């Protein structure tokens, strides 16, 4: 009897001492043009989060298309001649271009001249003329970026072109953060870089994290559906994020590189779930541009990503891998296939 008491007491105490798991959350404002938050469990959390934020700030500084000193700005100003960049920038440009090719240009990191033309978010938004759009489109095209593997040189074939990794930078920063977490042996946490989510590990008790997707209606802050994920990135692109309205029509910030205008496919938002946040980030934009039909077909072939497509008609379409995994939380939205 005494042995039993001793044994059970020891085990109870052991359980208590094993891991003091408290959640630590911190925010980073500014880098990547947004607010980032990391929540970690475990004893070393604060230090790991600081390391993550330092890396995110670094990525922002070096990959920002806007800052004068960034490597990308130098490429764009390079007037056609190759600019040698650091190895991670080069690798990211390579990946961006590969995805551009795979999506047939739906994702295009050279889209900047078109975006600048429409100038969303500046307060000076207006609808450009067809001529202006044609002119801007003459300065885009992912195939016109030349990479030299040996020198790590990147060049654009004409003046006026620009390389912008904004559509993939947050995802890349997210993957970098995940690598830092893994390196430090972190067991569980949530990374939220401006809405790009990475659910790292599982919750306490071994359950997957529950990630909601923002209701794609401007002004509403809730979520319309949830999914259970573990070690996956969840990235959403939507028309609701940045737009202006004129004459009853909404002009948003996700441009279709083939038309030079905001993608007009009847979609409110696209959410991609993938193991790589970089891929999820790029594909969320690409699939939004592609539209529900092409986008779902594209994802079905890819296998490394799944998607949730929300149409203007409030229908929610899922790629095959997510069937049964998504729960609708807002009755205004209908899961396609359900009555």
């Amino acid at each position, binding site marked *: 009897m005494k042995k039993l008491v001793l044994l059970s007491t020891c085990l109870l105490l052991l359980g208590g001492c094993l891991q003091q798991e408290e959640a630590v959350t911190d925010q980073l404002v500014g880098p990547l043009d*947004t607010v980032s938050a990391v929540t970690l469990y475990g004893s070393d959390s604060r230090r790991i989060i600081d390391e993550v934020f330092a890396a995110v700030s670094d990525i922002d500084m070096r990959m920002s298309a806007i800052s004068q000193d960034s490597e990308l700005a130098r490429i764009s100003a390079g007037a056609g001649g190759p600019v040698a960049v650091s190895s991670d920038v080069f690798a990211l440009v390579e990946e961006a271009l590969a995805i551009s090719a795979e999506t047939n240009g739906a994702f295009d990191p050279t889209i900047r001249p078109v975006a600048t033309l429409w100038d969303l978010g500046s307060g000076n938004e207006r609808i450009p003329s067809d001529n202006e759009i044609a002119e801007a489109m003459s300065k885009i095209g992912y195939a016109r970026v030349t990479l030299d593997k040996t020198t790590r040189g990147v060049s654009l074939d004409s003046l006026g072109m620009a390389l912008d990794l904004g559509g993939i930078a947050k995802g890349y920063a997210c993957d970098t953060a995940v690598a830092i977490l893994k390196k430090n042996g972190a067991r569980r946490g949530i990374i939220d870089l401006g809405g790009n*989510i990475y659910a790292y590990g599982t919750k306490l008790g071994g359950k997957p994290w*529950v*990630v*909601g997707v923002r209701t794609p209606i401007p002004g509403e802050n809730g*979520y319309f559906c949830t999914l259970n994920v573990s070690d996956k990135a969840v990235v959403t692109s939507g028309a609701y994020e940045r737009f202006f309205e004129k004459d009853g029509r909404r002009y948003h910030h996700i441009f279709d590189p083939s038309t030079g205008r905001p993608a007009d496919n009847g979609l409110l938002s696209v959410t991609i779930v993938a193991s790589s946040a970089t891929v999820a980030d790029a594909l969320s934009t690409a699939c939004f541009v592609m539209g529900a039909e092409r986008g779902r077909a594209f994802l079905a072939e890819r296998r490394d990503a799944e998607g949730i497509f929300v149409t203007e008609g409030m229908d929610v379409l899922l790629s095959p891998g997510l069937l049964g995994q998504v729960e609708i939380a807002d009755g205004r939205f209908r899961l396609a296939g359900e009555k």
Partner: protein
Amino acid sequence: MNRRDILIIATFLLFAGVWGAVKLVAGFGDARDAEAVAEISVAGKIVDILPMSGEERDVSIVGALGPLTVRVGSGTAYVAASSCPSQDCVRAGKITSRGQCVACLPNRALIRVKGGATANANSEVDAIAE
């Protein structure tokens, strides 16, 4: 089942019932103990901290680009007006619980909720992709 068993069962149920009733009335203590406050900072420096409860009141702060008006009260906080060109912060809407925040990046202003219950105490999600 004998009398003692029933006694034990009744005692447990009574205890649970009383405790549960007390909790319902008094609220789940630790979650509501610390008051929720809105912490407003500009360029990393805290410029104001206000309780989220109570009547709505406006606070004028000066951001990097110009003035902003933050409205705090009735359990919510939001940017009522801002000098920034894109007005993303105004469109972001209201925040209500610990862990949520609204930022005006051009103005380098950040409003955070500290203390009080987290949103997840009531809802299921651990994060929202947006």
